[in-house]
């Protein structure tokens, strides 16, 4: 699947960038699922197959948990950006452009040298890391922050998978993904519903 790697980098960068720009939760989750699938292509070819399976299964669980919590919470409406046009979508597009070009620039320079990693995997990692960071810093709502963190972690794992290919560690990192998804679901869902019903924690 080596020949697919450059294509995967392009799709990953587009999906991570679009996730920052758009407001539609359904599309965001679909792009997140796509991201997890593409990471499996970008992970080092020498990595054991179990790790790739772990990654794909993790992605499925994360997206499913986020989907269920978002559906129960009823946040599927295409809520428009509340911050106005200039500070909204156009601003985010410019930010995505700047981060993407920076990540590509850093990837092409000798600033980051990690032994054994393919150039396209490094580019994807930097793009996901940069755009994930952007998503985390631009949004305050827990599900948006979580999606940014997932991008960031996916970028990190592409690099770290080359350095440390232990199944135990990749499983633990997968647990981190799932825990974030579950806890974000709880924070968004249970507490608010509990209060809405007049409860007192």
């Amino acid at each position, binding site marked *: 699947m080596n020949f697919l790697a450059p294509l995967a980098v392009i799709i990953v960068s587009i999906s991570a960038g679009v996730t920052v720009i758009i407001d539609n939760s359904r599309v965001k989750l679909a792009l997140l699922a796509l991201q997890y699938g593409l990471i499996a292509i970008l992970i080092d070819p020498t990595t054991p197959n179990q790790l790739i399976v772990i990654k794909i299964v993790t992605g499925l669980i994360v997206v499913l948990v986020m989907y269920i919590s978002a559906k129960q919470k009823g946040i599927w409406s295409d809520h428009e950006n509340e911050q106005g046009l200039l500070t909204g979508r156009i601003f985010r597009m410019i930010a995505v452009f700047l981060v993407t070009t920076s990540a590509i620039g850093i990837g092409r320079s000798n600033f980051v040298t990690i032994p054994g990693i393919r150039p396209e995997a490094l580019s994807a990692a930097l793009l996901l890391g940069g755009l994930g960071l952007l998503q985390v810093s631009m949004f305050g709502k827990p599900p948006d922050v979580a999606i940014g963190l997932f991008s960031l972690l996916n970028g990190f794992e592409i690099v770290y998978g080359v350095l440390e290919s232990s199944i135990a560690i990749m499983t*633990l*990192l997968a*647990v981190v993904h799932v825990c974030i998804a579950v806890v974000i679901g709880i924070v968004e869902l249970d*507490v*608010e519903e509990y*209060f809405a019903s007049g409860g007192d*924690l």
Partner: protein
Amino acid sequence: MGASLLIFLLTLLAATVVALLRRRHLLSSVITGIFAAGIALTVLYVPLNTAISILGTSFRINSDWEILGRSFILSEANRSAIGYLYITGGFLLTGSWVTRPIRMFLPLGLGILSLVAGSLMIVPFLFAAIFIEIAAIAALIMLSSRKKNAYSGGIRLLIFFTFGMMALLISGWAVDVGGILSDASAVSERSLLLLYFGFSVLLAIPPFHSWIPIASEEAQPFAIGFTVLILQGAGLFFFLRFMNTFPWIWAEDVNLSILRNGGAVLAIVGALWAFTQNNVSKLVSYAMVSDIGVMLIAVGFGSVDGFRIALGILAARVIGISCWAIGISINERQISHSEGMREGQDEISHWLPEVVMIVGILSLAGVPLTAGFPSRWSLMQLAAHKGIWLSFSILLSSGIIGYAGIKITLMHGFRNSEHLDGDWGLAERAFLWGGLGITIILGIFPQVLFPWITQTILGLSTATP
């Protein structure tokens, strides 16, 4: 059976029982305390790798337990630290009953304790960063459960700890590679920067402290106290293990000097931040930041004495923060109760919660006759050998926080001190008096606490998993 598996199973059992009994606050708190103490005693005293016979049944508890190619090891190097963790955690969780926390507070707290224990046992220990990250994720629920949309502090904690975990994993790999060469120069400056970054996050060193003041306004006092104490404690133990495992990084005094002087600056800056606050919870949150600065000064000596003092401060802050949390929680309840009363009715207030609250703050500041004082005094004596600046910074931070604590309590507290009892019963009174008594007794007789700390530090310094 592996000892670590036994710890995890016992904690899981405790969490399940407590979750089932979550509607009965007092009972579940007492059960949590009993389980935490039982696990701590098991960790501290169970014979490892030796056949044990109980009621005719013979079994053996192994020090290591392997899963998916990685080991969890309970050894002399970490059993004191884990025992210490369960006792302090159990103390906090049991005391939380007074503050009426969320119903899942106790199971969550036990889960966090087991994760932090896992971080102390996993080999290679650098993977501890992942366990601490999962503990931080669980803490997000505690911090976000008080009122609607009160999740900013918890979300920030999650973001910071995720960054910290990634930085520590990468730098850990780099340092490990350098360690094979046994050459400090092999570790690039970039790796050391990542290392400092990672530990700054875990120890909530500015600018990564900002989740604490935000969460202190949103979360229940006991939730924020528990989270800060356990996560910073985990960070400190992780850091001490790191120093112990890679001593060649600290062989150069410049790195230790950065720790000492950075800690001194942090102690003063944190105290000044605390001084500018008008809110007791925020004052305490910045006092915690200042306190971690003082701990860094102690750790920066790179000696067993320094480590012992750092752990002494860590132990004393458990007492101080518990007192503050109990005092402010009951005080807040009194205020909300009196606000709900009709005009003409007697307002309900009592001096005891406010006194316990201020004593907790003074202990956190390290004022004489409180639990926080002996460690700071020892540190000032130790620091005097390195110049007056370090001792002065410790003294100044204590003075500023102590003054700010008294000032803010006089401004906001004791408003109705002439009135009689609040709506709290015998058990709450016992907790308040107990907190007050422990703080003062440990301030006057520190020898009660220090032998245990010495045992912990001996464990940390004599063996490396």
